[in-house]
């Protein structure tokens, strides 16, 4: 299967002090697959995704290639101008950001904000946009979608807002969805709901997904490939299942061991319950 997105030797430099922030990262994303990017805070996970889409601050310079394939061949995202990138960001690659609460304008209703995205990017009229929004909310199994449309962002929980974001991204029918730590700000129940949402998304639409997180459990649940980053460098990259089972690099091992240690007591307690049942 050919690559939908191939990033080669992506470097990001801070022009203010000539410091290299991302040191030559390469990875590929195939159609219908999910790439998980894991690492601690400051590892450069979000920066990599933003650099690819041209969303970094003006004093950062990106080098390397990020080839997005289309019907005609490949398009190097890093060489495109702002208007082309904007069109791509709207239609082919959608980004879901970390803090859902601040992604929505607190002064406008959810329904109108979601419609706005569709009207801007697809050029449809308001009533069409509204029915699109409803269809999208239904696709993510949102309870009472009509009610949700009329609410403001502060009236919904973080989990529901995140699901609205996912619904918006879904409805745009992009080729790739980039989700930047979508579950980090959520509590357990909402986290599970959003993760299941993403699973559904992959099954139903076949959209490729780049999932950025520092939580290995969530990434394991969703990803086919995994990219481990530390301090702007690619530490390990490979098929998810084998990487988690047999990590090659010390750092990956360390991440896996910490995560296992955290869930040890919980697993023990649940197994004990299952055994006695």
């Amino acid at each position, binding site marked *: 299967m050919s690559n939908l997105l191939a990033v080669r030797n992506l470097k990001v430099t801070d*022009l*203010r*002090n*000539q410091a290299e922030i991302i040191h030559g990262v390469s990875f590929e994303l195939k159609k219908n697959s999910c790439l998980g990017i894991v690492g601690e805070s400051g590892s450069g996970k979000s920066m990599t995704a933003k650099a690819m889409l041209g969303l970094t601050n003006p*004093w950062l310079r990106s080098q390397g290639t990020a080839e997005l394939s289309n019907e005609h061949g490949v398009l190097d995202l890093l060489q495109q101008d702002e208007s082309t990138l904007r069109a791509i960001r709207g239609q082919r690659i959608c980004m879901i950001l970390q803090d859902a609460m601040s992604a929505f304008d607190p002064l406008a209703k959810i329904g109108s904000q979601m419609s706005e995205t569709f009207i801007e990017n697809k050029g449809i009229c308001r009533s069409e946009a509204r029915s699109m929004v409803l269809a999208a909310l239904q696709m993510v199994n949102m309870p009472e979608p009509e009610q949700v449309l009329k609410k403001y962002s502060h009236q919904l929980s973080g989990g529901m807002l995140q699901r609205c974001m996912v619904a918006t991204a879904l409805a745009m029918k992009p080729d790739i969805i980039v989700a930047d730590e979508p579950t980090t700000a959520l509590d357990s129940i909402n986290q599970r709901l959003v993760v299941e949402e993403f699973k559904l998304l992959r099954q139903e639409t076949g959209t490729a997904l780049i999932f950025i997180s520092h939580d290995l459990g969530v990434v394991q649940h969703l990803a086919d490939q995994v990219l481990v980053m530390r301090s702007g460098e690619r530490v390990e990259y490979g098929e998810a299942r084998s990487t988690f089972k047999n990590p090659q690099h010390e750092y990956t091992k360390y991440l896996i061991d910490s995560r296992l240690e955290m869930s040890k007591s919980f697993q023990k307690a649940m197994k004990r319950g299952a055994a006695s049942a």
Partner: protein
Amino acid sequence: MAGFWTRFKADKMALVMAAFLGIVILLSLLAPLIAPYHPAHQDIANKFALPSAEHLLGTDQLGRDMLSRILWGGQITVLWSLATMFCTIGIGILLGVVAGYFRGWIDEVIMRFCDIMLSFPNEVLILAIIGVMGTGIFNILLAMVIAKWAWYVRMIRSIVIQFMDKNYICFAQVSGCSARHIINKHLLPGAMGEICVLATLDAGGIILNISALSFLGLGVQPPTAEWGMMLNEAKKVLTINPWQMLPPGFAIFLVVAAFNFLGDSIQEALDPQLDKSMKKRLSIFSRKKAVA
């Protein structure tokens, strides 16, 4: 707090501005001793003179020496403005901190007083007070303090309320620190940056207010020198002697600008984090050098 002085001393702009204002204040204080002429001394034959060895800044429409009038005028424009500012800030800090820290009924009472004061238009209030008490520089100061204190109390109270949310204040409360300790060691140093910015921004406004009142005949009476009034006198003879406008105009401009820059520098020196980001911002201007 040791860090504050280190950072302040390292900031060249801060030192230059502080030195400049220090010199201005010193010259204003020493005006009676150093001014070459008496500010009211008229020499009609020599009116509208351009700068010369005898009159370094020329003379005005009544032949009075501009340099002397600037020096004497500084006493009113600069020193009294500072005095007004410190009084209003003092009241603002006192009541603002009490209202913001203790909340409850104290906050309600103080806020309702502020509401009442703020519902009077500034200028009307000042005019009314001066109407009752008479003209003169001290009455202007009193009138301006009375008109402005409520605004400061509100601003400082909202700054304090933001700080009360911070976890380190909660921790200090839980570990049994007294209100006085928290206010002196955490609240005031933390809020001082923003308060300084408020104060320095207002300095310009106060200077202009005093000038406006003098123009209306409610403040300083001629022939007392005051920069704003000098500016207004110059305006009347603009076509005849355009130069006359420049000394008082520049004086006001430089002093107000210096206050603003100083306020920014104080704010940066107080916040160790701001210091870093400022350096980053400034280095964008040197980007050309870096890339080349």
